[in-house]
């Protein structure tokens, strides 16, 4: 799955989302469940705001010294006999993993959930090279066997499917013959996947956080599949975004606490795995060969810019779970594997503005995302910064909009002109005014009145009342 998914224009994707009543119901109930759980679990932690400050501090420090920590990580892994590859681009990362798979003559590859491998389209590259790649995270597995349906949520990729849809996918693709009971469905997937784990020649994992001081990688899951991916195949490849690193286990503790609570409202997920290098003599499990691929793919260009804090993201989707826009349009509308507010911030940074210019506008700037972020990324401010670049630097705003804003700038900075326009506002809108409201009209009024009335501007403005009170200011010229 590449970073951008689908070819429809943004407005069409939004319409498709809005028409999908099932998906909207599923998203609504998931959002409410996850918000409630997050609220309860973060309360248990004590002073949540202090934890957020701490999380932000750790991420800021790490990103400011990223080169140092990446080098430390790399040295520690190399010392243990692991291989580290810095990939500047998606192509470089994919070519490296393809080469490892070729050397190992890997026919079957099992994978645990990883957003960065989706971002670089690793599966497609390996499949084109004649290898079978099996996603083992339940959500990702469902999407993969359903003709590579794109993920609609960063943490719960198959959020948009209900259990009867999942049963149908299993029936059609895998010969499943039982009910849509979640336990039965899960048991079936387990049975299918268990053999795949045993047969696999190569395991690929993502990385929640690498730990620089010990050369470890950590994996946070609820299904245990990442442990099997990393324990059974003889060779393990871990792919990480270059920013997913902490200095020591102490910081890992803080970030994992924030991640589990923010993502799924759990104190800890069922499995939190720390893996340090390949199997050493005397160890019974773990890979004989370990490769870490550190992916840049546009990230280093974000360092040092006003958007640097977007790299603080720990992929918890807390911003997605509180977003009222995501609530209605769903994840596919964003046309990116990174959806919701963080997707609207990250996608243009990684993929450019040209194809993603609508995303920063897919927000009412309510700032629920900023408030929810456990590492305090000012998401709504980043959206505004994107808008400024789109309009003033890239000049991708429409001509009428540009002119109306110029007119606005002139009008509001000349108070006489403003007062003249203000005095005549009700007259300008008179043709569409019925009583005290406007229910239809041209242009922007049309957009507003599609679904709601507009109050008619008052003939007796505040200024008029103020004048009559006799204080003599605020008068029209």
């Amino acid at each position, binding site marked *: 799955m590449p970073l951008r998914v689908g070819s429809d224009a943004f407005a069409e994707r939004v319409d498709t989302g809005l028409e999908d009543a099932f998906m909207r119901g599923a998203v609504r109930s998931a959002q409410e469940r996850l918000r409630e759980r997050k609220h309860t679990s973060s309360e248990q932690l004590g002073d949540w705001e202090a934890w957020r400050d701490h999380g932000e501090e750790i991420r800021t420090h790490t990103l400011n010294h990223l080169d140092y920590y990446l080098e430390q990580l790399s040295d520690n892994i190399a010392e243990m006999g692991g291989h580290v590859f810095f990939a500047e681009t998606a192509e470089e990362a994919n070519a490296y993993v393809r080469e490892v798979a070729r050397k190992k003559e890997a026919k079957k590859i099992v994978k645990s959930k990883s957003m960065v491998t989706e971002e670089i389209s690793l599966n497609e590259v390996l499949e084109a090279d004649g290898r079978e790649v099996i996603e083992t995270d339940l959500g990702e597995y469902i999407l993969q066997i359903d003709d590579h349906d794109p993920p609609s949520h960063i943490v719960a990729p198959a959020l948009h499917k209900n259990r009867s849809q999942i049963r149908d996918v299993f029936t059609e693709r895998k010969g499943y013959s039982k009910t849509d009971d979640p336990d039965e469905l899960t048991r079936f997937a387990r049975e299918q996947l268990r053999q795949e784990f045993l047969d696999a020649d190569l395991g690929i994992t993502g990385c929640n956080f690498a730990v620089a001081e010990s050369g470890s990688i950590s994996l946070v899951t609820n299904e245990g599949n990442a442990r099997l991916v990393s324990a059974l195949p003889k060779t393990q490849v871990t792919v990480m975004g270059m920013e997913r690193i902490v200095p020591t286990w102490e910081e890992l503790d803080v970030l994992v606490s924030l991640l589990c609570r923010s993502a799924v409202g759990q104190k800890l997920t069922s499995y939190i795995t720390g893996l340090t290098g390949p199997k050493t003599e005397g160890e019974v499990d773990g890979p004989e060969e370990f490769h870490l691929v550190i992916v840049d793919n546009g990230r280093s260009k974000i360092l040092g810019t006003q958007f640097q804090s977007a790299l603080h993201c720990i992929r918890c989707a807390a911003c997605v779970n509180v977003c009222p826009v995501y609530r209605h349009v769903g994840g596919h509308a964003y046309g990116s594997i990174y959806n919701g507010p963080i997707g609207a911030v990250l996608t243009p940074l990684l993929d450019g503005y040209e194809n993603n210019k609508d995303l920063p506008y897919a927000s009412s700037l309510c700032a629920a995302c900023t408030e929810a972020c456990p590492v305090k990324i000012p998401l709504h401010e980043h959206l505004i910064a994107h808008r400024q670049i789109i309009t003033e630097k890239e000049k991708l705003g429409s001509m009428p909009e540009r002119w109306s804003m110029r007119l606005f700038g002139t009008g509001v900075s000349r108070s006489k002109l403003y007062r003249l326009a203000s005095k005549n506002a009700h007259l300008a809108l008179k043709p569409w005014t019925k009583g005290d409201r406007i229910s239809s009209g041209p242009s922007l009024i049309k957009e507003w009145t599609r679904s709601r*009335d507009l109050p008619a501007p008052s003939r007796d403005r505040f*200024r008029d009342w103020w004048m009559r009170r006799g204080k003599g200011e605020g008068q029209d010229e």
Partner: protein
Amino acid sequence: MNVSLFITCLGDHFYPNAGRATVELLERFDCDVDFPATQTCCGQPAFNSGYHKDAKKAAKQTITAFQESEYVVTPSGSCAAMLHEYSHLLSDDKEWEQKAEALAEKTFEVTEFLVNVLGVEDTGARFQGTATYHTSCHMTRLLGVKDAPMKLLENVKGLEMIDLPNKHDCCGFGGTFAVKMPQISTEMVQEKADCVRETNADILIGADAGCLMNIGGKLSREKSGVRVMHITEVLNHQ
């Protein structure tokens, strides 16, 4: 205490009663209110749309209009938050940045001013009816005014407040968002209007003209019969 009223463009044209109520409330608590005539709009439509050059013009106009003021009070959390944003917007010009900081320090949303500056929690208002309150996003999240409105409303005699379900969700106004992404905005305001109706309240109270225009516009279209009022109108009601 000298207070300058920043009426805001939406307040002036669409909710003039909220401006009147604000003036009367402030005068009741011994403020000497003035209205600088050269004030226009806070610039938020341009700022939020990314047209920061045009937003700067509005910012400078507003800073100049209120340069002499002791306090600036406005019946809008969103516009108050915008005034607090000016110093970032103008940060490439030291002189204007300092002026912007000075403006932010003396600017308050009206309920915040009543509770935190004047120390008033009971305005002496009476209002018979049941109401629900919409918490505006910018007022709570950007300006950080969370408790003042409810403290004041709880002391209005005769008024029964009913909690609004999903009150933390945005109503879908978002300034230009409402007309730039009307299909999404529509769904958001629909859900908000449904929540308001679920409370069976007679009145929806809000503290921002934008939100009230939006939710009120939906309730009006649906002929719901729910009355929409700005919080100052309730706090000034006898």
